[in-house]
């Protein structure tokens, strides 16, 4: 089930809070880095320090890759009152505000340029933007950035929180990407995952249990 998403492709990953979207992202990133791909992690919800720490608990050490195979676009730090210095030698692109959509777009482009295209972009999460910008602005931003990412930058995956947005909003986001991956809790509170659809590909749309082992995130 660990298929690779194609380049020049956009994917939306939706699931309720706590279901394991972050862990899923990390599993993809682990695979990308292992294969020598270049990764841009756009974080709105977590401080890069926390991302590194949580990756370590899943036996993924991100630091050796930073600057060469991985860069962060950090939209989080500037909004938290404390501002710890980034570790020396790492290149992180700071965006000063969740309202600065143009800044986020530019930082993604510069991060991609820094690593060298094509890159694989992971956006965690797009939901946070909705707390600070109008749906209309975000929709336009989403459209432009996704199009730019697909044609010039490589692959992009957005994580979005299920259950916090209007159905109209979710449908809009889903319509603007090539593929949709969904996660949910089963009746026994186990995490499940399925590929809802992938434009241009045949997808097996059945739900699979999704387990998070410290070593590797696998679908059983």
């Amino acid at each position, binding site marked *: 089930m660990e298929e690779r998403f194609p380049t020049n492709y956009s994917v939306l990953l939706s699931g309720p809070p706590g279901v394991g979207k972050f862990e899923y992202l990390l599993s993809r990133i682990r695979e990308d880095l292992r294969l020598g791909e270049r990764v841009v992690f756009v974080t709105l919800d977590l401080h890069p320090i926390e991302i590194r720490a949580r990756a370590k608990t899943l036996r993924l050490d991100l630091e050796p890759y930073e600057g060469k195979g991985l860069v962060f676009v950090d939209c989080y730090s*500037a*909004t938290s*009152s404390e501002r710890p210095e980034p570790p020396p030698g790492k290149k992180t692109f700071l965006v*000063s*505000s969740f*309202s*600065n*959509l*143009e*800044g*986020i*777009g*530019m930082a993604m*482009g*510069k991060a*991609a*340029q820094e690593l*060298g*295209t094509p890159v694989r972009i992971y956006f965690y999460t797009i939901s946070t933007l909705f707390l600070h*910008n*109008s749906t*209309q*602005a975000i929709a*336009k*931003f989403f459209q*432009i*950035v996704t199009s*730019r990412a697909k044609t*010039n*930058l490589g692959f992009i995956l957005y994580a979005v929180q299920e259950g916090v947005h209007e159905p109209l909003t979710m449908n809009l986001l889903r319509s603007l990407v090539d593929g949709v991956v969904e996660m949910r809790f089963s009746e026994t509170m186990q995490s499940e995952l399925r590929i809802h659809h992938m434009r241009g590909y045949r997808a097996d749309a059945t739900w699979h249990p999704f387990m998070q082992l410290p070593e590797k995130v696998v679908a059983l």
Partner: protein
Amino acid sequence: MAAPARPVGARAKTGIPVLDERLQGGFPRPSTLLLFSDKPTEKRIFGENFAVQGIRAGERSLYVDFFRAPQLARGELKRFGSGDLSNLVLVDATSSQLLLPSRERYHIDDIGSLENIRETVIAAARAEKPSRIIIDSMEFLVDRFPKEDVLRLWRELIEVARAIGAVICFLFINWTLEERDLQEIRGMSDFVVEFQSSLRGGIVRNSMRISQMAEAGIKTNWIPYTFKDLIGLTVYFPRILVTGPFAAGKSTVVKSLSEKSISIDRMGTTVAFDYGNVNITGIEAEIFGTPGQERFEFIFKIFAREVSGVLLVIDATHPDELPRARQMLDLVGPRIPYVVLANKSDLPGALSSGDISHRMDLPPDVPVIPTVATENRGVREALLLLAEMIIGVR
């Protein structure tokens, strides 16, 4: 608080010489600028540059920043040089959002109230009497408040700026407005500077153009620019080609324009290329000289890409080579601006510019400049002329 001395000179410089020249010194006072794009670009740098240029000229600049905390903004403005920023007045719009006390004199306490925003900005403008006001940026308001209210405030800010004789610069990326709203906003502005940012072959290329000018209605082409640490914005041409027949003086031209250049030549002839980086009066360019000999024409396939402009160098004492010169121009491709350098013009028998133009059957708007590359005469002028042609100010 005493207002600073009135700015010397009637116009507000941008600090980009080619642009300032076209603007006859800079933007007039008062005037309204719109820095606009509909996709993410680096326009903020132009706004920041404009603020810093004012301060460098001894003026006061008022910067309304909706996205950055004042400490962050001041820190980032240091990229423009280590000068004194005490004449920079910031309107703090973020501290209240972060639930922090503000250390600025002017701070917006309720970012959810357009009235509070309006009051604070206008109070700052009236008290500080800046000669430059930068609003960074308007889509923050357009996205949160009713359109009519924002447009009303927009107009009011223009009036306030006019009353104090300031140049007011609105940054705006359009996410949500319709074309007719954009028309209205353009109509309120004296000057519109559009921005573009493209990623081609893994390299980001930024450009801007003046698409509306209050006076004379003349616009510019897309001007490629880049940011140089501690200096600011410069016009940047990624590739200017220097070409022409064998022994015309191409390598000498490259050498004389650049501080440091390399030349791959053997036995008196260029076998691969010349390369130099030029930096004169706010223009930066990478210049590449091609070999003149026919056997090296394959080089054009490598270097004749993304060419901003061409310096066509000919030996003014060898009119028999003019057809060859024309041929080499064709190797570069059509519709690329070029200037002809009639080199070795100090030697006896050198043809006049008029003669050369006539013999090569050049269009009347193609300049032919007499040069003596070995003595660095005429070469810079030719390059500046080419730069102006590329930008479209000539």
